[in-house]
């Protein structure tokens, strides 16, 4: 499925880790890796890159580097379209202290506009860190089936043994407001019913997915859509969070952030947005 991976490179202290992660990912997917750098190609940068490539993990197919000047967002998006990339990898930035990460404005725009799936790395590592636990959203959406399939595809490629499917159930779906003992009981019965229904729905999607050798867990959480799942991934210290791409983003969505915006503002772990 993933045949062409594009990574946006900036010559930052993270370059080495980002590059090595990209190489490993490309190898894992058997994909060819493209690197785009927005800026002029000069000797030092090229040498630097060459040195890194020589010392790092070996790519199965050689890296193709693209140097281009212009607005970073446009250049990367154009390259994406041009090479027909399946996956765009971006390194997230680090905020004042080491506990917080955020996506810079460029990465944020790219995530919204990219025509392909996007993988945001908050903890790129020079050495391989095994991916042990993937959390994927299982919410009711026409894209979910595809996202889940992609998550399991990624899991089997990375050799990840555990996938948790998280169904976020929003409060409004409960319809029962907890006021007293009676309504509390009702709400809990209703919750169980919703959980069962959601599990069944996920079960149906799973029928068509090869989950061999992977431990699948279903977890219902009650909270704000798109946000609670990030919190959950953080609490459970998942290595990768796989999410649906948002259906649409308008100016209004940015004012009243939801789904993706929450995740982008508070990256809990590496995030893969499936398109």
């Amino acid at each position, binding site marked *: 499925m993933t045949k062409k991976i594009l990574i946006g490179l900036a010559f930052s202290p993270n370059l080495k880790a980002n590059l090595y992660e990209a190489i490993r990912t490309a190898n894992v997917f058997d994909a060819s890796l493209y690197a785009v750098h927005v800026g002029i190609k000069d000797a030092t940068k090229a040498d630097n890159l060459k040195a890194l490539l020589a010392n790092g993990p070996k790519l199965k197919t050689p890296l193709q580097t693209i140097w281009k000047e212009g607005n970073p967002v446009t250049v990367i998006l154009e390259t994406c379209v041009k090479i027909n990339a399946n996956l765009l990898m971006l390194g997230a930035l680090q905020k004042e202290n080491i506990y917080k990460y955020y996506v810079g404005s460029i990465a944020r725009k790219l995530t919204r506009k990219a025509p392909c799936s996007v993988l945001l790395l*908050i903890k790129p590592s020079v050495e391989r*860190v095994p991916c042990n636990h993937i959390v994927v959203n299982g919410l009711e959406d026409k894209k979910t089936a595809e996202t889940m399939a992609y998550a399991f595809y990624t899991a089997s490629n990375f050799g990840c043994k555990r996938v948790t499917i998280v169904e976020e159930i929003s409060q409004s779906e409960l319809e029962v407001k907890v006021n007293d003992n009676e309504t509390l*009981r009702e709400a809990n019965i209703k919750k169980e019913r919703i959980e069962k229904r959601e599990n069944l729905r996920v079960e149906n999607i799973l029928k068509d997915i090869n989950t061999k050798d992977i*431990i699948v867990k279903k977890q219902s959480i009650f909270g704000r859509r798109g946000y609670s799942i990030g919190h959950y991934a953080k609490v459970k210290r998942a290595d990768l969070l796989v999410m649906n791409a948002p259906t649409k983003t308008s100016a209004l969505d940015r004012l009243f952030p939801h789904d993706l915006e929450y995740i982008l503002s508070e990256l809990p772990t590496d995030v893969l947005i499936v398109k």
Partner: protein
Amino acid sequence: MANKNNFKNFVGELPKNIFSGFVVSLIALPLGLGLALASGAPPISGIVAAIVGGVVVAIAGGSQVTITGPGNGLVVVILGAITTLGAGDMQQGFLYTLAAIIISGIVMIILGFLRLGALGDFFPASAIQGMLAAIGIGIFAKQFHVMLGNTEAEGSIIELLLQIPSGIADFIATDDLGLLWAGCIGIISLTIMISYSKIRNKYFQLIPAPMWIVMICIGLYYYFDMISPSDYPIDKRLLINLPNNVLSNFPFPDFGKVSNLDFISAVIAITLIASIESLLSIKAVDKLDPLKRRSNVNKDIRALGLATVISGFLGGLNVVTVIARSSVNVNNNGSNRSANFFHASFLVLFILLFASELSKIPLPALAAILVYTGYKLAAPENVKKVFKIGKEQLIIFLVTLLTTIATSLITGIIMGIIVTFVTHVILSKDLLLFITNLFRPNVLMFKEGETFYVSVKNFSSFLNYTRLKGKLDQIPESKDAIIDFTLCEFVDHSVMENLNDYAESFRRKGGHFEVIGLDSHNAGSEHPFALRKNFISQVIENRVSTSKTLTKRQKSLHNIAEELSWEYTPEQHIDKVTELPSFGYFKTRKIKEVSNILSNENCELFDVEFHEGELFAKQIIKATMLFISLDKKIPEFTLDKEGFFEYIYHFAGFKDIDIDSHPDFSKRFYLSGKDIYEIKDFFTDELILFFESNPYYHIEANNKGLLIIGRERLAGVKEIKALADYGLRLMPLICEKLQTV
């Protein structure tokens, strides 16, 4: 069938509710009159509020044992409204205020329908304390003068307070006999109020203190009327003025000033105080309910609003839920809303049968009751309590108190909110933490088996408490709940206090409510409600912060240690439990420190903080583990629930070892290690039976001993007990096995 039973129960409980309603009405009568007088309203308006409130809320309310009527919190607001709206004319001011009361009732109904009963949670606890104390001082300042027979005293709260010494001097020096009598009655009444709870005589205690005062006053009147040759010495001016025919002559509200700014601010203030007082009372009364029912707050607010509207049209004051009368109701075995209804019915009886007697009650006697109430609200003990929680709480309290006294209630509470926020920012030294996360959901709840697990991140204070409350309210109190603050950097006093309330109600209803992840948060004082902030960066520098105060969890750990007669060390150490790094689990994880160590000769149960990953990827993780040291060598192995792969990658390459005679064990557990034969030999039938019949733990063995890990997070007290018990039972089995080798 259930309905029939309910009805039978209801009828069966009627007698005790009638009795309880009667006792409450004995207090409600003098208090209603007094509160109305103190508000500057006709005395009957307080009784009207109690009667309407009792009837309407009993029918439409959502709580069980609360009593409704005029509230003391509103005295200051209503008095202010009457004075400003009337511009000198108290009668006209009262009519305008009635209109304000009606509109505030409508607002409350709307709030109830919008489910904004939670509005009260937005106010910081210490600010509310400060506001209540200010109200108390307000009542005290004005009523003290009335108690001494001086109804003319006027001015702001501060002026009235300053006049108290000269008021006393004037009273002593007075040559007006009537005034002297009135003042003496006031002082005697106050003495009764103060000493009532100290006199432990069951006959004396049969009648509530305010009713004693009423009875003494009426007795005195009849003494002068029938026995003594002289006239009743107290001037008519100082007696309660009740309308001759209480069933007619309802004053009608005047809506003439509806668009006036003063009017609007009066409505806001009345609504604010009425809802805060009611919400606080409902919450407090729920804790008293012997049947442990949960009140439907929003339904109650709607009922109170409706009652207020009706009361306003009949010339009555606001209807709120009142704590003191409700406690009396519970103490006298009131068990459902009918008690509230009967309290209203008895008031109707009193007012119809004894109107002329009641009108002989001197004002100073009622004022004395209010002086006592006011003092209770602002008592120095309250200040002391706040101070114990922390210095910053005292600042919040005092600023709110002083602003409220000097300006108005609304300004006071707004000031309180601002000061609270500013102190939070100063204490956490992180304004961004609050600003960026204010509107973000910060609470996650999911079920871990049967346990509800709630994780709170960023910050948790009065600003976003509703979100936490929304989640916590959905947990049945008979279940187990764990609230994890590991990801949360700042927790304020209001939240801590509320969590404590939850813990209490869970305890009452047989559940278990536990807060974890606060051990590394520094507290400003010893008090369990003190706000706590996380000093991740500072802890590294001055690691041994021994002066830190213990959290509730640490105290419970201490208790467990005593129960098991183990030793307990709360401080953080890096050099304790030195065997840890030798375990495969810690091969890829760097131990930062070990704290909360419970230990005996062989076992050490502790919280360990460690890093996973480096630099960017660095994550700090805290978990609870048990280490058992063994003097003899046992084969290296790891044992896991089948499917829990996160622990075992350091043993990669080793396959699951199947114990031939126990297919079920092999199916459920993942056992791996280097020396298959030794391990197979080690796992005897008893040991396998033990593992099969006990909860799953991750167990790792090496030449030093055993490491037992539950979930990869801090364990709650209950879980720690289970873990310790598990270890204690496992150890003899293994030792026995080692002996035989």
